[in-house]
């Protein structure tokens, strides 16, 4: 009897800590609890128009990599015309679909681990516009020498996640799946 109470208390404590940051329906919480499949990265992109339009110049970033407020700021006609120095305009209807897809699947709407991490960290403060500038992401890549990124013809920018993260399209960013182009033995160079 006593054990059961403890168990329930422990699980509830965790549930509470999650729900304080998650405006998530309870049913989704329980679906996540009983789902045994791995959800350690971010949810892969499932929307065709998003994949096509936003995967044109760079890999189509999963919406779970930024909070909704960031997608709100990035995905409007004005912002897309001046999209990091490029013109990424799309027609109105497509934009609405892409916007809604991104916002509905933003970090705080996801139970995937890395999305949850990003959601917790961006809950307060201004909307980040770059994934690479999130504290979590920049910290993870802090020690990679410039020559492996900007100076590397196979990468060129940290924004091109899929160049190094071989399973980025599946939403998997584990360090064990990293293969830096032209630096097959990168591991141990800068980590630790």
């Amino acid at each position, binding site marked *: 009897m006593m054990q059961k109470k*403890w168990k329930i208390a422990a699980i509830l404590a965790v549930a509470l*800590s999650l729900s304080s940051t998650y405006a998530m329906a309870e049913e989704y919480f329980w679906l996540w609890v009983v789902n045994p499949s791995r959800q350690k990265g971010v949810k892969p992109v499932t929307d065709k128009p998003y994949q096509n339009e936003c995967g044109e110049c*760079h890999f189509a970033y999963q919406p779970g990599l930024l909070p909704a407020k960031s997608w709100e700021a990035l995905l409007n006609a004005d912002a897309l015309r001046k999209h990091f120095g490029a013109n990424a305009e799309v027609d109105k209807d497509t934009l609405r679909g892409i916007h809604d897809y991104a916002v509905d699947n933003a970090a705080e709407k996801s139970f995937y681990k890395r999305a949850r*991490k990003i959601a*917790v960290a961006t809950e307060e403060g201004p909307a980040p516009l770059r994934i690479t500038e999130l504290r*979590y992401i920049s910290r993870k890549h802090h020690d990679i020498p410039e020559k492996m990124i900007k*100076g590397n013809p196979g990468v060129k920018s940290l924004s091109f996640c899929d160049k190094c993260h071989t399973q980025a399209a599946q939403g998997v960013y584990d360090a064990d799946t990293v293969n830096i182009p*032209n630096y097959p033995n990168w591991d141990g160079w800068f980590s630790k």
Partner: protein
Amino acid sequence: MKCRVKFRNMAAGISLAALSGMVYADDMAVNLILPTDASFYTHNFQSLKSPSYLLAANEGEAVPDAVKGPASVAPVIPAAEFKPPMFTGRNAHKYLGLGTIVLAGLTAATAPGEACETNCPPPSSQPRQTSGTAHSRLARATAAMAAATVMTGLLYHWDDFHMEDGWTDPDNLHAMLGTAGALLMLYAVDKSAKSTVPTSHAATAELGAVAMVVAIKLTW
């Protein structure tokens, strides 16, 4: 006799810990082969021979160039051929954690009935068995594996633990719940092993196991 059993359990614990340490040492060995910038140029000469590397040196930092990315890419190992390695410290941590949960389940399954709390029969004249039973062996193995899990976690995921992210950060919660769970299980084993009368240590141990399960789920 008691002493020998203790020694054997200690040895088991140490070898488990050493096993986890060995994976680490393995990584370190790679470090030793490729430690300096200078050796990079001798090892990875491919990138020097690659014409695109030389071309790239003349390219500006302009964004449109970067955007053209895929066309001018000449990776030595195409991503498709890359296979994530099997034996990594992070994998060791994962399997040790899962193994701990399996052992904890077996330990609970072999428990010799609830410790008595009310209406206890008079304690038998037989001394209480705290070693040699399946339950006690499994319990010690669970505790040793839990300790090894925490150790590998500290080694391989140290850079995932940042208190500045707050305690609701999934990785921080994972580390704290996992460590607390391991400590609770160690405490339960220790409490029971030291006692000459049946103790109710099941609740503590189970809470520890639940904490570990929740920790795993949080970052699964």
